[in-house]
């Protein structure tokens, strides 16, 4: 079986990750200008929570190795397919869409900003219906204000949002500048991480599990 790491624009000069999950060799299969990185296993699964955590970290490092060289579209851990022919069929079908995404996202990275959870104490401490509604309104207003301030850190850039997390698509190399702008907001509760592969900005997300049942 195959564990899939990520896809990237094919580059004959690019280095393969030195090792994959559980020390397995990382291979690449190419379809036109698209390369897909994977490792082969006779068996995969089980293990203790610690071992599984280590597997997930190995998975991250393998992707990170490619991501340091160029844009990638990562697979979610653990993305597994039974055999190489299934992977090749998948790539044959979706390579144009993934390549379009990779070309659009070339030289861009994703930065994440986590907002603090809404403050519930002030709402919970209210003693009347009116006070409760006002506290809820004030809390919501604060969140909107904070969101707008966060987005002002990268004006004109593409942003995506999911469950209190904001994702900015910024040029590779401007990560430090982005962090400085977020820090300049003076909101200690904001948590910035990145650079990440721009997963939130990928448009092509086919349901592979459905394909395999056909």
């Amino acid at each position, binding site marked *: 079986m195959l564990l899939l790491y990520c896809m990237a624009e094919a580059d004959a000069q690019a280095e393969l990750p030195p090792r994959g999950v559980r020390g397995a060799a990382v291979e690449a299969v190419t379809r036109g200008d698209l390369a897909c990185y994977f490792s082969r296993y006779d068996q995969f*699964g089980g293990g203790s*929570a610690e071992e*599984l955590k280590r597997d997930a970290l190995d998975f991250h490092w393998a992707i990170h190795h490619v991501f340091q060289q160029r844009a990638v579209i990562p*697979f*979610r851990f653990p993305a597994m397919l039974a055999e190489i022919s299934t992977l090749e069929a998948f790539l044959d079908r979706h390579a144009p869409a993934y390549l379009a995404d990779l070309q659009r996202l070339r030289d861009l990275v994703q930065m994440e900003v986590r907002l603090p959870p809404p403050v519930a104490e002030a709402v919970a401490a209210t003693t009347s219906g009116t006070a409760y509604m006002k506290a809820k309104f004030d809390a919501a207003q604060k969140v909107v204000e904070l969101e707008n301030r966060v987005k002002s850190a990268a004006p004109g850039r593409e942003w995506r949002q999911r469950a209190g997390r904001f994702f900015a698509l910024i040029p590779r190399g401007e990560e430090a500048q982005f962090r400085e702008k977020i820090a300049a907001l003076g909101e200690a509760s904001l948590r910035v991480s990145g650079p990440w592969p721009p*997963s939130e900005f990928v448009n092509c997300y086919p349901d592979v599990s459905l394909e395999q049942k056909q």
Partner: protein
Amino acid sequence: MATPHSIRLGADDEQDISLVEILDNVLNSGVVVQGSIVISLAGVDLVYVGLSLVLTSVETAMKHLPPELKPLAPRT
């Protein structure tokens, strides 16, 4: 300063990214591929759920557990 759960990604990276953030990212981002391969027991995807139980919210983990493995609601 790096916490015990932080990892320096390399000389080119400005910041530490925490272990939890890395794991959250690999488990919750990216192209989903779930084939017909059995890496599960009693309907539970061991790899995914095993990590989810350790690293993500109870709510997320519960979504991936079959009903017979979900804890009963506390008695009132």
